[in-house]
């Protein structure tokens, strides 16, 4: 799964968008999903990110992420239902009481709340997956540098992400060697097995350190950190049209904040689920928000036309 989540060049309108645009759009979506608690808004936001993922042609890479989200979502719903006893619609009652928590009950409201949290989490993870799969990691680095983050910190971050696949390979290999030495018998209780598993940490650490020294050496040999003003060969440059799109992807964020300021998009789960009253003003507002979020798609198509001409 880790390997599939690596960026790959593709020729889609989304991949052609400026990295700054994609970053702002994706982070904007995450902020929006945190702003709203109304289920209709959240489902709509989920639909928006799915449309973008589809358009970017990364549906196949995203499906394992969805699987992860489902697992997380189900566990959130279960845990929330088991520990949150608010809400008036009791579906089940425990025949005993717990200290501090009181009598455990499972309520419809707690389940609904858990479900909406799961949707939120899916939106956030999907948005980051979208950024990860459509923005070249070096471009992310360039954007961060443009935001005046210190070069060395940015480089360390990008280096460590680059070497994650190597680390996974190392771990796999060392684990195989460990198994062939009879160190991980299929018998024994889980505690002793976990303890034995920890034996691969030292060799893994030492191979990572070797790697780190070699990388440092290679950088030193190419005049890294010589103290002069470093130049940057590839910069993220925003064209006039990019600026236009950038403004357009900032609009939904502004709109979302205004909607919340005027008191829409909120939802009460406890003690009783609020009725999903959704016509008139809230409906129109959501429509506007979605239009603004999706406006990036026609703009992306127009940009490609312009570039081809």
């Amino acid at each position, binding site marked *: 799964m880790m390997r599939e989540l690596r960026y790959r060049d593709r020729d889609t309108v989304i991949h052609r968008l400026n990295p700054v645009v994609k970053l702002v759009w994706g982070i904007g979506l995450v902020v929006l999903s945190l702003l709203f608690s109304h289920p209709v808004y959240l489902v709509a936001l989920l639909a928006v990110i799915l449309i973008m993922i589809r358009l970017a042609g990364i549906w196949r890479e995203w499906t394992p992420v969805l699987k992860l989200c489902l697992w997380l979502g189900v566990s959130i719903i279960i845990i929330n239902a088991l520990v949150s006893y608010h809400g008036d619609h009791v579906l089940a009652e425990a025949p005993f009481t717990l200290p501090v928590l009181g009598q455990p009950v499972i309520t419809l409201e707690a389940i609904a709340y858990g479900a909406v949290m799961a949707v939120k989490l899916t939106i956030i993870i999907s948005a980051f997956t979208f950024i990860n799969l459509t923005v070249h990691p070096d471009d992310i680095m360039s954007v961060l540098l443009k935001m005046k983050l210190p070069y060395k910190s940015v480089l360390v971050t990008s280096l460590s992400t680059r070497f994650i696949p190597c680390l996974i390979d190392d771990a796999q*290999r060392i684990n195989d060697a460990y198994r*062939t030495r009879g*160190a991980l018998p299929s018998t024994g209780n889980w505690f002793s097995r976990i303890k034995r598993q920890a034996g691969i940490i030292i060799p893994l650490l030492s191979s990572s350190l070797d790697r780190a020294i070699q990388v440092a050496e290679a950088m*030193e*040999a190419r005049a890294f950190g010589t103290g*002069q003003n470093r*130049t940057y060969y590839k910069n993220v440059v925003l064209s006039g049209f990019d600026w236009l799109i950038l403004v357009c992807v900032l609009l939904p964020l502004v709109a979302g904040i205004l909607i919340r300021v005027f008191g829409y998009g909120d939802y009460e789960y406890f003690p009783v689920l609020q009725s999903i009253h959704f016509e008139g003003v809230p409906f129109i507002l959501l429509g506007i928000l979605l239009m603004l979020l999706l406006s990036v798609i026609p703009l992306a198509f127009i940009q490609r036309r312009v570039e081809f001409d």
Partner: protein
Amino acid sequence: MIELRDFTFTYNGAVKPALQDVNLAIEGGEFVLITGPSGGGKSTLCRCFNGLVPHFYGGTVGGKAEVQGMDILRTPPKELAMKVGMVFQDPENQLVTSDVEREIAFGLENLGFPVNLIARRVEEALDTVNIAGLRFRRHHELSGGEKQKVAIASVLALHPDVLVLDEPTSELDPQSAEEVLRLLERLNDELGITVVLVEHRLDRVVHLVDRLMQRLREKGLEFDELPLTVKEARLKLQKALGKVNTTRPADEHAAKDPVMNIDRMWFSYGDRTALRDISMTVNRGEFIAVMGRNASGKTTLVKHFNGLLRPGKGRITLDGVDTSRYSVDELSRWIGYVFQNPNDHLFADTVEEEVAFSLKNRGVAPEEIEKSVERMLQRFKLTEYRKSYPRSLSGGEKQRLALASVLVTGPRIIVLDEPTRGMDFALKQELTGFLTDYCRDGNAVVMVTHDVETVAECADRVVLLSEGRVVVDGSRREALSKALLFSPQVNRLAQALSSYGVADTTLTVDEMLGQIT
């Protein structure tokens, strides 16, 4: 261009100097090969040319080292980086960014070159190394050989006068290695770049052909000087060759006594089929070499032997018993597995404990363990290091320790994945010595390797894989002679001399000597 006078260097905390009183002069435009045993200070020497020693590593320096008249000690690494480019062994660990263009630009960016000049240099470097087609690729999409070329390009972009390469091909398969070496030759020929190369592969070639000629000299044949390549050797031998006797090299065929049997096995990683319809037998006392191009399924195949991978279709039997019933842990009693990098084998705090590790895991009685460990330490000449920390041993010692720690359980089959990669000639001989001894006791050795010379010396049988299929399964003589890519140097020589009566199935130096009187 490069001059060392009485140069001595000691790493911090080391007792003995890594380099002692080195005197050396390299002229501009030369192609210099540095050879020597593992642990002989080759890497340290390389690193002093561009100031990594002592600027990066730190240590005590004596004597004088100059590059183009600049004192290495007093010149900042920045300036040295522009004079001396350095390429390292592991292609993965010297690429800093994540795509080819940025990688080539990295050094120039560090030096603060203006963007338009960087663009020009990147273009130049891509063309010089002939990898313009890779420019937008990301590193994980490249093969090892391509990565190494990118590393060379990224150094060339700085316009160095000297290119220093520390075993640049030891992690590559033979074809990619050949390409990288040819590239270096061209850079030296056409651009006049001084190349300083540490390389085992050339070392081996020179060594074998040299040894043959040296011994022919002892037999009375006259050569003015020893040849360096197969071509030179051929020309010299053609002139000097006298009588050739008609004894043909032959192998004795031992009775076949199967221990492991693989029956119509298939395997795939997700959508990619890695092994197709593999059937083969491993016999007692047999030394099998598994060969083939990269990604032809060699490692995938041998990982099935001890259950690290399980067949998708087909079955594997050990002494007639289906192995699918046993875990890796249980199978490892009968089948030992030695990974390519001995570091992956080292889990314990002392050499002694390392050897005892597998036995302890299996709950063997302490007196028993002590006896077995003692035997192994003696056999692998590790007794004096018994209390040492395994990772502080030298490369060859680590390899012996890895072998000892696997053989201590007395497996019937031992699988080795590219054990000779990056080893010098002496270490290889030592290893194959242990392995043939082990075979003689009625055990089987299965070795995945690219190393044709080693196979020619000691394998009984060769299994050649291609695209996950067995394409050749036969004696080494059938598999290695008359083939172009997979034939050893001596065989290439013999093929060229077959019109003089030398058998074209000759594989080793000794066989060749047996024919020439």
